[in-house]
């Protein structure tokens, strides 16, 4: 291991990926457009990578990503960055600087650069890898719960794609969750065993009549897809050095093997169109200062929940003065995230935390109680409560025996629960272009106005009540509660190019194709009309596979 700073010159604030973040900057890389491309995909996160992989056998596919291609050999150094106090979270994957500048407006602060990674693999390089299906009612919130729009598709439409997505990502899970939506086959890998602390929680939950069950992980519980099983590094979020945690480099590599071209550090500045409502090219900038145009028959925008609406807004033209695909006026509106609800404390016995960086048990029992006033929410039983000894060791004023004593005092008997809560779509919660700030290419940066309504805040309190009840039953001293005043986002950007059958009410149709431009699709959680309370990426993956099928059909028809 060559040290955390071997992947770059320290913190990334200042210059973003251009700080030579140790990513394979590849100055001799050919970043010129591919002639006669069939499909151009913007973004090499899981959405873009899955579309590329699925289409690459039969079509000429090009993927453009704004960020770098990271060298897999640097992962231990990135892990060290995750542990050492000198580095902030965004430094681990070189996020920040002029490339990633943004503005916050409105009451709620949104820490955007903690919530994404730019580069080949996208935000899954940093993610935790918890992958659940949305519940059936999540697709019909308006009808069943009396709030928000229904999706123009149902769980049944996505169900086969969910199964495929689970195989593609490699999901370890079990069928012991009575609250999960129906599934047709077991998960591709067995679930991870419950943790020791799960066994402590289990007694308390049983006494209270609260059900615990396993939780699906996009993480190998056994060798899968030529990737290692989890070896317990415990730093899953923000980096898994072993490759046991799925990230989208898996599908990028597979797509490249099938002949797709993936161009890194190719930041798409705008999409061009003709007079017949077709996108004709993606204009992109490369590190040498050149600007290129990638033409294609079909375009798939998969740039994440913030950059996707931004790119459409940046592509405004005389024909589309409000931005591309924005006939509805809804591009950027309805920005949502999941809200965190949590509580924790200490027991008077060891709880064995921080061996691994993921959780193994959850509770979906209260999810479908949701109605007009209560949002769906889920509960999680953490395996990483309290401080990690190594992080404590690196930031004190002590060493030797006093340090060891502090570590022994600080580590060992923490317990904690988390949970995610749905927020309703609200047009005032939105991504727009900032008036007075530009990025490294002179484009207006995204401005986030994040607002959260009372239904979500009240539901956080409800989740807290259950969490505290469980912790007290466990005999814990409850030391913190993350309630409505201390909540934060789960880093799931959703809603900003919502799906609707009605062109006036949404940006894309039920196939995730933009209403306004016939050869342009969006693969992202930005199409979610409502968010449910399940982590979004399995749904993103399922939708991406479905987008690929639709693109394939339409290209064949043409």
């Amino acid at each position, binding site marked *: *291991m*060559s*040290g*955390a*700073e*071997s992947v770059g*010159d*320290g913190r990334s604030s200042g210059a973003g990926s251009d700080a030579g973040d140790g990513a394979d900057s590849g100055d001799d890389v050919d970043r010129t457009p591919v002639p006669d491309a069939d499909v151009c995909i913007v973004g090499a996160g899981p959405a873009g990578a899955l579309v590329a992989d699925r289409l690459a056998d039969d079509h000429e596919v090009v993927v453009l990503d704004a960020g770098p291609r990271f060298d897999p050999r640097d992962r231990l150094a990135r*892990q*060290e960055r995750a*542990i*050492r*106090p*000198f580095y902030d979270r965004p430094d681990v994957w070189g996020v920040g600087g002029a490339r990633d500048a943004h503005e916050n407006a409105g009451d709620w602060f949104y820490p955007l650069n903690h919530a994404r990674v730019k580069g080949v693999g996208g935000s899954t390089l940093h993610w935790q890898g918890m992958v659940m299906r949305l519940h059936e009612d999540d697709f019909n919130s308006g009808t069943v719960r009396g709030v928000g729009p229904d999706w123009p598709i149902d769980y049944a439409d996505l169900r086969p794609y969910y199964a495929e997505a689970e195989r593609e990502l490699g999901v370890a899970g079990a069928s012991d969750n009575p609250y999960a939506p129906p599934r047709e086959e077991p998960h591709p890998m067995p679930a*991870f*065993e*419950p*943790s*020791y602390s799960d*066994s402590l929680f289990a007694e308390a939950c049983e006494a209270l009549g609260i059900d615990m069950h396993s939780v699906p992980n996009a993480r190998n*519980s056994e060798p899968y897809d030529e990737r290692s*099983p*989890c*070896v*317990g*590094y*415990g*730093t899953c979020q923000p980096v898994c*050095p*072993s490759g046991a945690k799925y990230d989208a480099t898996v599908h990028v590599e597979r797509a490249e093997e099938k002949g797709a071209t993936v161009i890194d550090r190719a930041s798409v500045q705008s999409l061009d169109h003709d007079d017949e409502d077709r996108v004709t090219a993606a204009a992109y900038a490369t590190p040498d200062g050149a600007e290129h145009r990638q033409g294609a028959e079909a375009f798939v925008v998969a740039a994440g929940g913030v950059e996707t609406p931004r790119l459409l807004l940046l592509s405004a033209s005389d024909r589309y003065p409000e931005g591309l695909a924005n006939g509805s006026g809804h591009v950027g509106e309805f920005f949502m995230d999941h809200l965190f609800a949590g509580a924790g404390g200490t027991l008077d*016995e*060891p709880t*064995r935390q*921080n*061996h*691994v*960086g993921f959780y*193994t048990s959850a509770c979906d029992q209260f999810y479908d109680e949701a109605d007009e006033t209560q949002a769906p929410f889920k509960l999680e039983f953490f*395996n990483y409560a309290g401080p*990690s*000894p*190594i*992080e404590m*060791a*690196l*930031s004190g*004023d*002590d*060493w*030797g*025996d006093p*340090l*060891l004593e502090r*570590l*022994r005092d600080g*580590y*060992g008997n923490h317990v904690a629960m988390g949970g995610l809560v749905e927020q309703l779509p609200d047009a005032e919660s939105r991504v727009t272009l900032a008036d007075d700030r530009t990025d490294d290419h002179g484009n207006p940066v995204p401005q986030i106005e994040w607002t959260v309504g009372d239904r979500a805040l009240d539901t956080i309190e409800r989740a807290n009540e259950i969490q505290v009840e469980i912790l007290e039953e466990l005999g814990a001293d409850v030391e913190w509660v993350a309630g409505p005043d201390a909540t934060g986002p789960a880093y799931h950007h959703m809603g900003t190019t919502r799906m609707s059958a009605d062109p006036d009410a949404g940006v894309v149709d039920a196939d995730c194709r933009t209403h306004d431009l016939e050869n342009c699709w969006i693969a992202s959680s930005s199409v979610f009309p409502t968010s449910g309370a399940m982590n979004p990426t399995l749904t993103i993956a399922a939708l991406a596979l479905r987008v690929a099928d639709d693109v394939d059909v339409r290209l064949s028809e043409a």
Partner: protein
Amino acid sequence: MTAVARTVYPEAASGIESFVDGFLDGRLDGSAHAEGIRAAVAEVESAARSWYDAPVAELPAAERDDLLRELGADTAEENPHGTTAERVRYYVVNDLLLALYASPTGGELVGIENPQGYAGGAESYTRGPP
């Protein structure tokens, strides 16, 4: 490094010399980080010679501790590009602490045989306390 380790590691850590040798074998790999370690160690060494007239390895434990504190390495926040104190904290003190507490050797002293940063397998989290 071994002499500093005797100060920053707890009494209970045994086999310090071979532990540090093993760690440095991997760490002094010709990289920029290895250079950083060498330079910071040289600064500690030169401070020892000018303030205490002896190499670090020959200082009694109390003076080694004083030396590191006089250098400011106890209160400094680590920084690979910072002041002497911040670099000594980064390359010497924290590199040693990272080596120890991200390994089972140090982890076990605290009660975690599979600490963060160590690939100790995906079973230890399921086991109860020994």
